[in-house]
């Protein structure tokens, strides 16, 4: 299933880690500087993990891998994440 889905797909696994809703957080792409809600990212979901890519340049923003030893969250592709106030 090579087609991607939307950043909404990150909400479940990320909700196990953080109290904030990742889909309404604003991400700045480390590669092209595009500024967008994570809900707008292109997410490739497979049993290996979730790979979120910039909607603009396609570079990797975030990788999330759930393993029996814990969750690996790699955010090297982001220069920043603005987290919206809750409520």
């Amino acid at each position: 299933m090579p087609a991607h889905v939307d950043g909404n797909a990150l909400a479940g696994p990320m909700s196990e880690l953080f109290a904030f809703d990742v889909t309404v957080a604003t991400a700045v792409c480390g590669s092209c500087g595009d500024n967008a809600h994570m809900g707008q990212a292109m997410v490739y979901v497979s049993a290996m993990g979730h790979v979120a890519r910039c909607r603009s340049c396609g570079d990797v923003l975030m990788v999330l891998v759930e393993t029996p030893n814990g969750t690996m969250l790699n955010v090297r592709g982001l220069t920043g994440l603005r987290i919206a106030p809750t409520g």
Partner: protein
Amino acid sequence: MTTWRAATVASTARLTSTARSIVLDVPGWQGNLAGQHLDLRLTAEDGYQAVRSYSIASVGPGQLVELGVDKVVDGEVSPYLVDEVRAGDQLEIRGPLGGWFVWRPADVGPVQLVAGGSGIVPLAAMIRARRTSSSVAPFRLLYSARTPDDVLFAPELDNAGDVEITFAYTRRAPDGFARKPKRLDRTDLAELTLPPADDLTVFVCGPTGFVEAVADGLVSLGHDPARVKTERFGGA
């Protein structure tokens, strides 16, 4: 933080020849916003697990949560949910999830909904949320289905009050239907959806190719990409 919890199938109902409504009883469910989804986890007796995301069709309080599931050919989870699962069966869920692809009754601007196939599910939740609130936000729905028999929640959509609903079909239209069966194109979008406006929000949900084509078409018609919210289905 959200984590997995047990849910029990309360009831199921056939929606179309390939789709089913599944109502889950989730102890402690605090309600959800229209457009949110949940992750569903199935565990086989030998420990094998599969996780999929499903949009939530229901809104409001109570611990009953309705999903609308369409069978994906060669899928792993959806055939089980459409053909096998029955009241009393147990599974696990995580949610409600996502605050991006949601409509809140406090949002007063006009709303255009565009559904492809079972992409109607979260959009039906938005129509339900509007009906159960005092919202007067203008709502319009463009719903592309294979045939009239493939329309989910048809009786409910027939009684959606002042929501302006347009159907389009890709394989077979009813007798006398003016538009010939085909995929939605840019002309359809120009004629059958609300024009771009600063306060308009568009929600597009369906299979990846459908969402891609519709979102691209809307942006080319002048819609602000930031106001065109999309939810693509993975599948299986």
